[in-house]
């Protein structure tokens, strides 16, 4: 699974509030992946982050 351009989205677009999702492309398709342990895409993003092959940009 090729994940690129990962960036956090904060609740209500307010970076002072908690992050709620990660915007990224997965195999070339735009995804908004919730920060939720039960989501398979989030699990894969975190696996790649922990492996050091993916970084996530801070929310605006």
């Amino acid at each position, binding site marked *: *699974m*090729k994940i690129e351009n990962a960036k956090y*989205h904060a*609740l*209500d*677009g307010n970076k002072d509030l908690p992050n*709620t*999702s990660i*915007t990224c492309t997965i*195999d070339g*398709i*735009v*995804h*908004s*992946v*919730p920060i*939720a342990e*039960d*989501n*398979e*895409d*989030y699990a894969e993003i975190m696996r790649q982050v922990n492996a050091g092959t993916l970084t996530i940009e801070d929310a605006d």
Partner: protein
Amino acid sequence: MALSTIGTNQISNEVFQANRNLVKNGAMIVAQRAASSTGLGAANGYFTVDRMRMAIGDASAGRFTMAQTAVTDLSGFSKSVKISCTTADTSIAAGERLVLNYRFEGQDLQSLKSSSSSLKAFTISFYARANAAFNLVSEIIFGADTSKNSEANQVNALTTSWQRFTMSVPAATNTQIDDVTTHDTDLMFWMHAGSTYTGGSNSTTLRPNVNANRAAGVSSIFASTSNFVEITGIQLEIGDSATPFENEDIAITFQKCQRYYLKLLSDTAYDSYGSGFFYAAAQFYTTMWFPTRLRATPSLVSSGNFAVMNNGTHSAVDSLAYNRILHDGMCMQTYSDMSTNQGVQGQGGMLRNNNDSDAYIEIKAEL
């Protein structure tokens, strides 16, 4: 004594049990993503028929097309899933594989348990054919556990004619199926495998998982671009024999599939996805209700061009994001950013396509 009528006590309870088929969309009638997808083979995933995943091992040169195909010569069925080789690969690395894979939530198989650590007998059945003689390996694997009885398989000799194959798995001890909404168990139909998966033996009795056993005896669909395998009528049920395939109203099957995935397709250039309001001038919320509770917190997938229509103004959406899930998984609030036109805080509006009839939104909670 001859009987003039057959009472219910002469017939296995399983025959009349509703929802006895634990496989969703086993008749291949729902394909929300697409009817056909070509050039596959580089990655795992769901591509056409709902709930039917393609599992890929190590990188292979082999490529295939996956298609929902009309069935005209098998009584009781109208659709199948067809896997066709488009690029051959006869230099097979050890870790290669190609598998039609059905993933179960653990909670969907709790009826198989006879205790917390033992299983009742169960039977897998399906219809299949190929372009020529082909050995397809069917396999059930619970958690890929090497310390418990977790794996069983058999070779099925396909021909050019439809046949029904059954694989009955005896009751077993020292097994485990967790009561979870996550991926716990796999039903696998092996069509290609390297030596990692083929050096062992077949057994329909559950045993500890050993990779070398998993696809022993399988043919390779990548041996020739003439090759295809076609499957339908997949059923997994309690009991030591197969009952007739349980046909189901498509509306029910469709809703079962939407627990994992739904696609909001556009038919025209300006189709609407939902109404909402401006949280701020350049930020618009839309609430999307789902037809059923999703398995897990879903991803929001978007492709194409979107806009917010408001008070006669048309504002192009720069990005569309998941903002929060609501009502225990029954609806999602999305968040749209805009840099042109924009609205007025508090005003209503509508999220729709922006002159793009190919745009779509997917809600994805797959296993």
